[in-house]
């Protein structure tokens, strides 16, 4: 770790993130194995399609638990748009699509990230509800149950697509951001480029934790 790196996430956040991410990925993979007979071979990795189904179902539970905790943790930071800053950012698409001299400053999470978060939350909840009903379909009338499947598929369309967006933007699309979810420490320069508003706010409030420096104030407050 280099001196001067800024702590952007704590371990709790990172663990939750990865629980969510891995369960989501696992769900996507196992789901694909059941959705397309061409992907039935994925079942072999799990000892057969039947166990694949079990893995999918129980991973769904992990995903559900993670999602609930994640919502609790990130709702304030990523679940609500702040105006007018976020609107300004949206107007220029965060500088991702065309050249922008100055990307409007946003909070810790920019509206793009918020949109992603909200999509994950929305689609995730949809997946959990529809998935649970699909797990126990005989409890409800077939006419209702049968609509759970397209809804589940709809959620999958969104999540699967967003998964790749997230993958791209979280890695090579935004070099330097990966450590945020690995070590929790980010290069101040990257932060300045990506999250200038948050950096300023933290500095202003004296909450910034910089590697090698004494912590200036109390603990990170997300889960206080």
């Amino acid at each position, binding site marked *: 770790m280099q001196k*001067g790196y800024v702590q952007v996430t704590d371990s709790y956040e990172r663990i939750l993130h990865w629980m969510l991410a891995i369960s989501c990925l696992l769900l996507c993979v196992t789901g694909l194995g059941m959705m397309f*007979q061409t992907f039935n071979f994925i*079942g072999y990795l799990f000892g057969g399609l039947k166990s694949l189904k079990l893995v999918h179902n129980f991973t769904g539970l992990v995903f559900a638990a993670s999602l609930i905790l994640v919502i609790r943790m990130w709702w304030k930071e990523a679940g609500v748009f702040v105006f007018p800053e976020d609107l300004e950012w949206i107007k220029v698409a965060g500088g991702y699509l065309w050249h922008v001299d100055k990307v409007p400053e946003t909070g810790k999470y920019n509206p793009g990230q918020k949109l992603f978060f909200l999509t994950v939350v929305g689609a995730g909840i949809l997946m959990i509800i529809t998935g649970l009903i*699909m797990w126990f379909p005989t409890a409800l009338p077939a006419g209702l149950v049968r609509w759970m499947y397209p809804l589940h598929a709809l959620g999958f369309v969104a999540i699967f*697509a967003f998964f790749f967006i997230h993958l791209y933007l979280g890695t090579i699309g935004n070099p330097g951001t990966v450590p945020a979810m690995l070590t929790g420490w980010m290069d101040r*320069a990257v932060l300045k480029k990506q999250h200038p508003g948050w950096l300023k706010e933290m500095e202003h409030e004296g909450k910034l934790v910089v590697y090698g420096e004494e912590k200036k104030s109390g603990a990170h407050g997300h889960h206080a």
Partner: protein
Amino acid sequence: MTEKIKLYDDSKCTACRGCQLACKQWNALAASQTENRGTYQNPPSLNANTFLLIHYQDYVDKEGNVKWLFRKEACMHCTDAACVTVCPSGALHYNKATGTVGLDHDKCIGCKECVAACPFEIPRWDAATDKVYKCDMCESRIMNNMEPACVKACPTGALSWGPKEKMLKIAAKRVEKLGGNATTYGDKYVKGTHFMYVLKENPAIYADIHKDPSVPLSVTLWKGLLKPLSLLAAGGVLGGAFLHYMIHGPKYPDLPKDENTEGGK
């Protein structure tokens, strides 16, 4: 493939239930504890151990004439079978020789997707084995040039089995002979079923019969639209990202200009 159809003619059915028993016997299905609930019909409905059920129905028509209607409920073996469409594992499949819908229990993963998808509400899931059960038209018999067990057992000719074209003709002829409200049921739905009825009465008066069954819209949306869309969208994203990377480039931090770097290196 020679498509084959099992025809049930309710005008010839005496509800002796030889078929219901033969089905259990051939398929080695267990009996359940039942009780008389005010009808001859038992078990009350299809279940994981009952692939075929004779329905009994008292019916009084507008003129006050009493009728006792019987109907054989079992898998209709759709040509466009929603269960096959939704089955994730290929357990439910079209029999290549006859067009009927088979069920390979080794492959069934108990996901119950077919339970919800079937427009005739046929497949039944069993908790103990975590598998779904339904009539497979006695694949073990029809693949060996025997008729399904129920057909074999039927004493009156209410059940018959044969090539599709022939059976459709027989059914049409029978409807014509019966006259009145007689009609066929099954052939007009889901691109034609491989188990079909000749009904002596107007189908609307039969209890628990599915009126105008079709592959549910949800299944079409799901398997016809959303399923390909999921890959399309993911593919689109990947393609878009690639293009973005190539054309717009990634968003590098502005390292050299960083005035806030503390402590340097």
